[in-house]
């Protein structure tokens, strides 16, 4: 068979969000891959500049439907650092509990999606059923299943009652059992093994070179986790371990995520049992002093970066969000070359892509109907007209 171009996306059953790959394949082998991102640009960064700190958190939470707590935490963490606020320990513990529960539901969801991509729908149905236990806990604690709205600048908005803590502790043994079952399935189920092992290999050097983050990098043996390398919340004070794997393929990424599920359960249990007494928030000033801060956070998918520039008012001058999926795309494009056509869905799913969160900008020319990319210099020229204008004067 000659080389053919197979369009995958923007609408395709394997994709839950719009993205476009032009896969150039020779029979069943992939020769090359062209990526086309940003179908769902929502202008969140711009909208964030128009809202004060109280109203910007719910907005940033809506960057992502799954790692919503990550975005609001990353932002709140950065702003609190600028304001030099001391956050009470109880609030930090509650933030950690929500963050780890979020990681659990995200990883369970991912395991189901990965199984679905190889047609193993039983695992898909089971993990999504068990994910409900996590969702129920989150709903009990925050009142919401997806956008928890727990964070605010200076602490958390809701305290945990004793009943909520006990109910959450009661759910953990069942979850532990189920996750053990999945460890067993991933290590013994033949079709899972043949489809995951040796697929989408990424060596440690490549992972570092292409800037992979999160479970994708950790599966290639890169021992990098913001929670341990730049600790925030209470991660420095509680017992937990960074999960890594050396195989570097989809199987390794599965093992890392399942390992993180077990670690998350440990963290949640520790935090629930050792929840300190005290207030859950401090009153934050309305305005933040001028400054720039880079806030890093380990989202379920990897390192999430919020760059925040404040200018002494109650609004940010600029907030720039780099989601982990964006950092992982290059490694996916590299993994896919010389792989089998049938492995595209599972390799793409292995980074747990959250596509709409990565959408930033796409250049469209309405006159000649062209789309494409622009150079960094040109982007700077277009976006910083104000500073350039000053230079010209």
């Amino acid at each position, binding site marked *: 068979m000659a080389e053919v171009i197979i369009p995958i996306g923007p609408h395709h059953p394997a994709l839950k969000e719009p993205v476009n790959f032009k896969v150039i394949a020779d029979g069943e082998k992939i020769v090359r891959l062209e990526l086309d991102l940003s179908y769902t640009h929502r202008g969140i960064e711009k909208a964030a500049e128009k809202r004060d700190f109280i109203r910007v958190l719910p907005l940033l939470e809506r960057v992502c439907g799954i790692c919503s707590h990550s975005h609001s935490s990353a932002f709140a963490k950065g702003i609190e650092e600028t304001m030099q606020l001391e956050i009470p320990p109880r609030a930090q513990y509650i933030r950690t509990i929500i963050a780890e529960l979020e990681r659990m539901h995200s990883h369970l969801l991912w395991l189901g999606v990965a199984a679905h991509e190889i*047609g193993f729908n*039983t695992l898909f*149905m089971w993990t999504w*059923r068990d994910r409900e236990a996590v969702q129920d806990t989150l709903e009990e604690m925050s009142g919401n299943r997806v956008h928890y709205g727990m964070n605010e600048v200076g602490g958390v908005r809701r305290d945990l009652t004793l009943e909520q803590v006990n109910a959450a502790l009661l759910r953990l043994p069942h979850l532990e059992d189920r996750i053990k079952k999945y460890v067993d399935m991933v290590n013994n189920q033949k079709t899972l093994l043949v489809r995951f092992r040796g697929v989408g290999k990424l060596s440690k050097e490549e992972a570092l070179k292409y800037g992979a983050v999160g479970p994708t990098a950790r599966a290639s043996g890169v021992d990098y986790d913001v929670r341990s390398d730049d600790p925030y919340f209470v991660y420095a004070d509680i017992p937990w371990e960074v999960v890594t794997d050396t195989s570097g393929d989809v199987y390794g990424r599965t093992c890392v995520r399942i390992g993180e599920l077990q670690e998350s359960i440990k963290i949640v249990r520790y935090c629930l049992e050792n929840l300190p007494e005290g207030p859950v928030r401090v009153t934050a000033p309305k305005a933040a002093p001028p400054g720039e801060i880079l806030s890093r956070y380990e989202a379920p998918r990897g390192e999430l970066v919020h760059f925040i520039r404040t200018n002494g008012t109650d609004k940010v001058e600029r907030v720039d969000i780099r989601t982990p999926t964006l950092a992982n795309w290059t490694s996916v494009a590299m993994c896919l070359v010389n792989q089998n*056509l049938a*492995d595209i869905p599972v390799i793409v799913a292995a980074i747990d892509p959250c596509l709409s969160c990565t959408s930033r900008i796409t250049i469209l020319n309405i006159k000649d109907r062209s789309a494409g990319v622009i150079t960094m210099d040109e982007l700077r020229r277009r976006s910083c007209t104000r500073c350039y204008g000053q230079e010209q004067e």
Partner: protein
Amino acid sequence: MIDPVYTFVYIFLFPGFLFIIIYGLILEFLDRRIAARMQNRVGPPFFQPFADFIKMLGKEVIDPEGVDRQLFDAAPLVALAAVMTAYLYVPVLGNSPLAFQGDLVLVLYLLTLPTIALFLLGWLSRNIFSAIGGIRAVTQMFIYEVPFFLALLAPALMAGTWSISEIAVWQQKNLWFIFLQPIGFVVALIGLQAKLERTPFDIPEAETEIIAGPWTELTGRRLALMHLTMNVSLVVGSSLIAALFLGGPMIPWVIIPVWMGWIAGFFLFLAKTLGVLLVLASIKVATGRIRIDQLNRIGWKYIASAAIVQVALVLIINSRWVSS
């Protein structure tokens, strides 16, 4: 000669075309329901396959640009006609009245036609996903067809007849082939699963990779007929395995009057096909989809070898005991 009224009823009503369509849809319901319960879902209500079928028949038929309409319309019909004809030679109520020496080969041939029709549909669709799906369907056919045929022909070799009905009668007198040829039975089940393109062999229609493969451009009655073809194939395949390995509708003792024996045999046949379906559904639920290159390796290395071993064993047994 056979009574013409009886032949008419047999071919068109029971257990011919009308029965097989209804039974095919019921089997689809059971298959989906069993799979759903195993996956901790509720599953569809009883009438869902019927409702889907009727609704799809009434839907608009869309022709992809530049497609050969006549051929595109004909392929699902040919496939459906082939599998429905195949069913007439499988014993359901005692012996099939149309049975003849060599109907086993005819049935196997007719069962292959839906795959060819799918390849044609994929090729005609002028769609890259359909074309890849069609090529995968044929590639897969070359892998599973050889062991499947070998496994189904081994009972014929031992029974010394090429008629399905006579093989069933032979088992009534001796022993079911599931006990005499267990390797062949397993190979036949795997082959049937691959023929019906069910997980782990749903490579030609892998949803997450190539949308629906050859099915992508099928709409309206074409889609309805192709679905029905797969359902009927499921009935024919499971009946064939029931007849060749599980003794078919034959009862080892004599029941008087004869029609009582037929009814008992019919329920026995239902039970056996449902048993085969349960096994197929369990395989579907317990596995993920493998890749075509992996299937190639597994198929030729293990499944084909197992089938050849089974045939060789049968030949050795035949030369030692049966011929003397």
